[in-house]
């Protein structure tokens, strides 16, 4: 719904008023941010009476002239990306297995898998990391990778199942009627379509996974945050003076990585849009995938969850 529907086309007076509000609002926001930055940057006197330099004082930032610092930060980035990469690959594999189990025709497979899936999805990732860490007594890296893979695998599995279910029944029937076994039909007919259709959601989940690698900080893995802030500021001759500047640099690196991956995710969402047989029946308001179940063959695949993805919907669902 475009905003213009809500009010008349503004006349000169209203346009001027809106411009003034916009400028005043903008100035208020910029002023507020400036005041915040100014307060952070000015000298403070602590309760003990010592004078502390502002956060933007050069003595807090000269550490970044040292290439060793950047080297350590690089190691942190690699550690984070390595965990995210390994966990992502495993999560997709686990997700595929889960989706097969969840869509199995035998209820002896389907029901237990459903229960396990719901259990994993309702669990904090952090608790899973702790579980793996303590119960299997592995190191923090393995615990982090395992928990991230299983948790995100459960979510990807659920997305793939929704994808398989939203396919027209004719796809499966066609596969079976030309003599393919049920498993082959699932693998070679249904699954490739479901995967392609759900790709945007899977990639969005991988962005969440990258963000969640920072949880491994809490179980003691040396990732970007631990290396970049704790370890560097504890190094001899560095000290807590650089705490803030290191934190902000780590924050900027995280932001850059996540924004880049989000951007790629959006690109994929646009490119693998509802092209697959989307001549008819694309429900723009995102109808229930199940309602498409017995649809006509030509209705083929709609992308019901896509509207969720565009706003990255509940991308927070970890």
């Amino acid at each position: 719904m475009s905003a213009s529907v809500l009010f008349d086309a503004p006349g000169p007076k209203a346009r001027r008023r809106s411009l003034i509000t916009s400028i005043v609002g903008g100035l208020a926001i910029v002023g507020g941010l400036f005041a915040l930055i100014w307060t952070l940057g000015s000298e403070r006197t602590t309760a003990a009476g010592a004078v502390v330099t502002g956060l933007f004082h050069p003595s807090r930032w000269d550490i970044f002239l040292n290439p060793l610092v950047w080297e350590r930060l690089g190691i942190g980035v690699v550690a984070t990306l390595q965990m995210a990469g390994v966990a992502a690959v495993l999560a997709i594999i686990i997700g595929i297995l889960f989706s097969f189990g969840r869509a199995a025709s035998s209820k002896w497979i389907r029901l237990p898998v459903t229960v396990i899936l719901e259990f994993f999805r309702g669990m904090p990732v952090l608790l899973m990391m702790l579980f793996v860490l303590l119960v299997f007594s592995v190191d923090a890296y393995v615990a982090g990778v395992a928990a991230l893979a299983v948790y995100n695998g459960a979510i990807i599995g659920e997305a793939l199942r929704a994808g398989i279910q939203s396919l027209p029944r004719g796809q499966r029937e066609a596969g079976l009627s030309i003599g393919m076994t049920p498993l082959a039909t699932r693998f070679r007919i249904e699954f490739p379509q479901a995967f392609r259709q759900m790709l945007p959601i899977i990639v969005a989940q991988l962005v969440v996974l990258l963000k969640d690698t920072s949880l491994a900080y809490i179980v003691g893995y040396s990732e970007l945050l631990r290396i970049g802030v704790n370890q560097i500021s504890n190094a001899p001759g560095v000290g807590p003076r650089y705490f803030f500047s290191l934190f902000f640099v780590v924050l900027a690196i995280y932001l850059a990585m996540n924004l880049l991956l989000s951007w790629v995710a959006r690109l994929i969402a646009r490119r693998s849009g509802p092209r697959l047989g989307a001549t008819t029946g694309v429900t723009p308001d995102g109808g229930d995938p199940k309602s498409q179940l017995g649809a006509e063959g030509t209705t083929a695949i709609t992308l019901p969850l896509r509207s969720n993805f565009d706003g990255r919907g509940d991308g927070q669902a970890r």
Partner: protein
Amino acid sequence: MDAITENIDFFVDGFLGTLGLLVLSGIGAMILGIIIGAMRISPVASLRMFATAYTELFRNIPLTLILFFCANLLPVLDFNPGYFNLAVIGLTFYTSPFVAEAIRSGINGVPVGQAEAARSIGLDFGQTLSFVVMPQAIRMVVPPLINVFIALTKNTSVAGGFFVVELFWVAKTVANLRGDQVIMILLAVAVLYLLVTVTLGVLAGRVEKKILVMR
């Protein structure tokens, strides 16, 4: 089993801590999220831009970093209302863009025809929003909002890594005390988390069904 019965106080405190974090930061995120969501659909360009930037920024910062900032850096800046309150602040800021997005997509989900019809019978901007668009949008917003709160429940566990007494902290602490019954302890904590998330999930399912009937 006795590891749980012996430390039952820990579990009660932790569960209350988790619920407290959930309720307080849930309320905070609702307030902040509604403000940001309103800014995002407002006709004032500068507010819209600010709200978009805010949403993009906070959605792409890992929660661990936000809570790290709240727990370790804010006290250095002479702002220290205690770790629990600091965690509530962090969770509020982290969750607010998701609330704002849910609200915005709910309002955008109301068919244009509704607003057009309202405008064509002569309602003005305020009337259109409050009598026609909002009542429908609120219904569409509830299920995704409940999903946001389910995620928030799980996210409160991160606060346990930053000195707040809640379920994850209890899991860590009691497991340290009783290394012999780790699995039992962690499963008990998991069940307590599921108690909250499954309840919310059932609630979301009910609301969704009700809305489907109404439409």
